[in-house]
């Protein structure tokens, strides 16, 4: 999953979340493959960001799944508090889902 400024969105990308306009109105559901028409409409309604499935655009600051998991291990190194370790597990599940290709 990635959330991108409208300018980065190209037809064929699939929505991961609903697309909501500047007035809070839903313009498009989730799991929808975007078309040129969608994009025009989004622009008209002042949409700024869209959350799409997968990681389609290479962003310079974005880590790979391997880097994310490695960072996670490092941040939790030496930690034994069971609640924190539960948070770590939840994060792992979250990351695996986030990076899942569709």
């Amino acid at each position, binding site marked *: 999953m990635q959330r991108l400024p409208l300018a980065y969105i190209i037809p064929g990308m699939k929505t991961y979340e609903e697309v909501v*306009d500047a007035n809070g109105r839903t313009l498009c559901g989730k799991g929808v493959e975007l078309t040129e028409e969608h994009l025009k409409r989004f622009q008209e309604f002042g949409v700024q960001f869209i959350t799409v499935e997968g990681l389609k655009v290479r962003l310079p600051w974005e880590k790979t799944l391997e880097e994310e998991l490695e960072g996670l291990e490092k*941040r939790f190194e030496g930690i034994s*508090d069971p609640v924190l370790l539960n948070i*770590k597990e939840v994060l792992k599940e979250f990351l695996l889902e986030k990076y899942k290709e569709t």
Partner: protein
Amino acid sequence: MDPYEKRKEVRRKLRKLEGLPTLPPIVQRLNTMVEDERVSIGQIAELIEKDQVITSKILRLANSAFYGFPRRVSTVQNALMLLGINVIKILITTSSIFEILHKEDVGLWEHSVGVAACAKILAEKVELKEPQEIATAGLLHDLGRVIEKVAFLQEYNQIIEFIKKEKKDPLKAEEEVLGINHAEIGAFLMRQWNLPERLIEAVEAHHDLSKAKEFKKEAAVIHLADVLIHARGYGESLYKKVPPLDEKAFKILKLDFSFIKELFFKLEPKLYELKFFTEELKKETEGM
């Protein structure tokens, strides 16, 4: 110098605001206006709009992802209605400090906006009133760290050294060097600036929940948000590892652990927006 004496010296310096950026002149007028019950939001908006720099800063923060309004906030009056006068007052009071923050320590800036976004989600989940105030407390929670860097640079460097070389806990290192930690420094200044007690307590107690008296839930939200943002690995602070979590936070908030996964999914899109926001700020400062 022993920590007790040092603490006194630090507080003296803070009281005189030595080495701190001066508050925008508009703050004082705003404070008197806010206290006057006859003054309307429209009049307050008019005063703020006279200052174009402040106006654009306010609108920008009002539109950023940590507040997460679906509508575009396009006027000061709009911002005042959505965020409330408290928040606007705080954003104006602290504007010069945040400017220093994202220019000088972009890692801590990212940490702060991340905690703000996370705190907003938590505050909404547990139905605290005015969640945008809690987001603002998140934004300010490590304010003391910025102050250490701006007004006590020598001591700050020593703190960093203690943490790196002697593997000291960051809070302990601060207390040894300055006799006071960043949570206390932040709260001390916020009191001096007459900011609302609700936010002050949340900042003061974010590493020690027992310090919260009247606003335990607010403090618990900021504490938990701080731990979760460290866990997610967004931004940077003096903690290279996830800081200690006080489990009581869940009890105080009557929050079930199962919400945490949902929270990370809600948070992630916000973190993307905040990253783009920060990149934009960076470009502007570099271009200046």
